[in-house]
């Protein structure tokens, strides 16, 4: 594949994929919650740009609706809600000491390679660009999970959860030019409800263990000791 021979849209999609992947890595190594939320909002913004780009280039007006939804939910509402929680809990000056940061970053790189490996069979039936886009979305999902595993703050878990959604969304936009509108509206509704529920949960967890450190949620075991 020669990059210069591709059309503008495809080139733009490839750079977007790279940037979205980069933001995932930035989140993975971030110990400050406010910066984590900021990078998450950036990722949402990149998604919005990708959606607008796809809507414009492919002349697909319903994608503008999903661009607006992404902007409202992932760039404005959810980061705003999380930020407010952090400030209320007075956690904005804390730096979470991440254990095994190097190992986590290396693991992240490994996951990216793994995503390419898993999706490699589809190269036979579609373009290399598609493989890149889908592999990046899958690795954004996996990196989101790794983020949840390596961080202890409930807020970081929510960011990880939502960035998994971002990865899915990127896959849907790039590979299929967006899911059918009714499905996309449904997914956006679910994300909205999930965000509100997370807000409620922060309140419950705080009143129950007086912290948002989920390592303290350790009362239930698989087998009773």
């Amino acid at each position, binding site marked *: 594949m020669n990059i210069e021979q591709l059309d503008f849209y495809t080139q733009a999609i490839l750079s977007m994929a790279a940037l979205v992947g980069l933001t995932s890595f930035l989140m993975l190594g971030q110990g400050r919650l406010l910066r984590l939320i900021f990078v998450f909002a950036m990722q949402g913004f990149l998604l919005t740009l990708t959606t607008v780009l796809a809507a414009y280039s492919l002349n697909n007006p319903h994608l503008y609706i999903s661009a607006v939804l992404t902007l409202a939910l992932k760039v404005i509402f959810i980061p705003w809600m999380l930020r407010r929680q952090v400030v209320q809990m007075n956690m904005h000056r804390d730096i979470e000491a991440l254990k095994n940061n190097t190992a986590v970053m290396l693991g992240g790189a490994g996951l990216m390679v793994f995503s390419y490996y898993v999706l490699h069979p589809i190269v036979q*039936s579609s373009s290399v660009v598609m493989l890149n886009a889908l592999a990046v979305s899958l690795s954004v999902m996996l990196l989101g999970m790794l983020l949840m595993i390596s961080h202890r703050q409930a807020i970081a878990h929510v960011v990880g959860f939502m960035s998994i959604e971002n990865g899915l969304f990127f896959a849907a936009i790039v590979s299929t030019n967006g899911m059918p509108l009714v499905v996309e509206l449904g997914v956006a509704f679910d994300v909205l409800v999930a965000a509100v529920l997370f807000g409620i949960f922060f309140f419950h967890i705080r009143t129950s263990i007086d912290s948002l450190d989920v390592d303290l949620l350790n009362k239930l075991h698989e087998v009773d000791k």
Partner: protein
Amino acid sequence: MIAAYLVLLIPLIGIIFFALAGHRDDTGKLNVRFNGICLLATIWLAINVLNQGTIISSGKAFLIDPFNVYLIVLTAFVGFTTSIFSAPYMAHEKEIGKLTDGRLKLYHSMFQGFMLAMYLVLTTNNMGIMWVAMEGATLATVLLVSLYRTPESIEAAWKYFILCGVGIAQALFGTILLYYAAVQIGDGENALLWSVLYQNAGKLNPEILEIGFVFMLIGYGTKIGLVPLHNWLPDAHSEGPTPMSAVLSGLLLNDALYAVVRNKMLVDGATHSSMAGFLMMGFGMLSFLVAAVLLHRQKDIKRLFSYSSIEHMGLMTFAFGIGGPLATFAALLHMTVHSLTKSAIFVTVGHAAQLAGTQKMERIRGLIRTQPKIGWGLLIGTISIAGFPPFGVFTSEFLVLLATMHSYPWLTLPLLLGIGIAFAGLFRHIQPMVYGDKPKDQKPISANLWPVMIHLALVLWLGLAIPGFLAHWFSQATLLISGSTPL
């Protein structure tokens, strides 16, 4: 088709009504009525399908075929009987000060929300909407798991939320891959419709579908409670209110399995290999054995039965994985009898826990002497779920064994072993609870065991003789899933 719209409309009205009206003394009874009317609507729908065959709504948004219609009726039936149990149970919880009016309002509204999500999963023709509804079911129930607001229940709900949310995100990735394969051959807006996909399954790209199915199985498998993604299940079942445990175990797990089977039908059509079946068999067998062993180490009565649910879901996944007509028939039957029995058991367990004032098994004693109804209910329920003849669970497990012997003879051994281990695990805990010495100040409580008796009677009936129309129904569904029928 009007019946299908009614089935969705009634719980929708229920959500809004309970949210606006607030909690009153008769809210529990109203909840029973909503579920009762819905049950009537589903029966009407079932009669329609029985007469006309598969129905597709005019906009192709909904599809009712023999496979999902029986699950719809089952969902409505278990929802109805659970709401009968729920009314006095929740009133008692309020009396002893565990719940307030506001939380009961949330409970009833979300009960209907959960039912709506379940009906939507089953009736929709769109694989994307199926995902949305499945996630909706998590969202509706997550606040119910933490209804008591104890630290344990909040931990359980958080685990449930995160694990199921992340898990089900994998299923969305699988759905996106499915859509990606579908737009390559056909039109965009309709490409995710199951009826369209099923017709064109042979033309779908097998590589993409294989990768997609792995994600679907992991995603929906989290909701089925397949090992090693099962951790949320015992926590959510044991910490939430008991009626919720009954519907989670009896309905949610079934519907997640339904979603997997629907996808398997597409993948099988595209790949012509047994990849999907083998994956399901492997995960199913693993869940079955691990849960059977873990049964022995439980101390909480609701956790005990949630591990039993994992075990049975594993068995069903295994049976659907084998895939022949006999195994599919057995799996469908097992879905039915397991739902009925398990929800009956959770109802009894709820009463037993209220009687003893705790869910710790070592402090539940002498049920049969304090209140024979509850003691017998628990004993018969356990006998039934452990797979004793003449109950229906025996019939379906026996059929699964037959199918296994036929296709993979060497797998019969671990199956028999698992059934034996699970049986021992259940009885070593249940026996002292039912027969042990009665604690001094234990007094009978007001308990409504009609739902339990009706469920167990139905399971007994299914074990003795499956009525003709039901057998016809099962074989229609088997024909749809596996391509031929065992009868």
